[in-house]
């Protein structure tokens, strides 16, 4: 049997945790499973930052989960300048991102460009380290990410977030 893993997201001032999110849509509201159409971004604004994590709910007899990688496939859309920023990075990792009430302004440490292909090595840590691992139920460090736009940005971009882990039997 294999491990069971979900992606969770924290929102709100007191860190309400939504387990097993069904989408990672970004917009003008701090909410899990966001309806992006109902929460559009004003061109020039940032989206509310997302705080998400890998959550092992059951090791399923496996001994280790590690080598967490996140990346986006697909473009951010046309018009203006967009960026997808994150704390995820393959080197000089800043340690575990501390949760704070999500905002739609820049967040310290969430300033790397989200990769658009599979990174060569882990870019999200466990226990504050890229070489960390889970050997029992538990969660990764928080992945923080958000989209920045400028006044020329146009609406309606769709892309795919990838969350990958390795598992050792």
């Amino acid at each position: 049997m294999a491990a069971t893993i979900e992606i969770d997201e924290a929102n709100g001032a007191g860190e309400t945790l939504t387990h097993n999110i069904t989408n990672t849509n970004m917009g003008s509201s701090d909410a899990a499973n966001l309806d992006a159409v109902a929460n559009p971004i004003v061109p020039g604004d940032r989206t509310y930052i997302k705080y998400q994590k890998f959550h092992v709910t059951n090791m399923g007899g496996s001994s280790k989960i590690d080598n967490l990688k996140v990346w986006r496939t697909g473009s951010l859309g046309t018009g203006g300048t967009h960026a997808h920023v994150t704390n995820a990075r393959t080197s000089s990792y800043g340690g575990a991102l501390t949760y704070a009430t999500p905002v739609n302004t820049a967040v310290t440490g969430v300033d790397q460009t989200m990769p658009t292909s599979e990174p060569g090595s882990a870019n999200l840590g466990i226990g504050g380290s890229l070489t960390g691992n889970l050997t029992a139920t538990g969660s990764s460090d928080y992945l923080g990410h958000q989209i920045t736009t400028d006044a020329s940005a146009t609406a309606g971009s769709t892309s795919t977030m990838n969350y990958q882990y390795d598992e050792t039997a």
Partner: protein
Amino acid sequence: MTELPNKAIGYKQDFSVEELVGKHIDGVTGLVFETEEDYLNHVSPVTGATPKDIEHQDALTDGKFSKVSEAALKRGEERKEE
């Protein structure tokens, strides 16, 4: 009135933002739980399994989760042999 699954205290829309502080929400059903343990042990009304069961994720992803697991195990074994 529909009975709530074991340990669920309601649905997300039944609570204010303040009342949801520190709570655990099932992203698929919107069911709310006081603790993570309560969430992990509840039987999902959608899948008939708990969030700890691989069948739960498979039911939600049309069987794709098992393939994700297989790929993860393969990568883990390949790295072990390096």
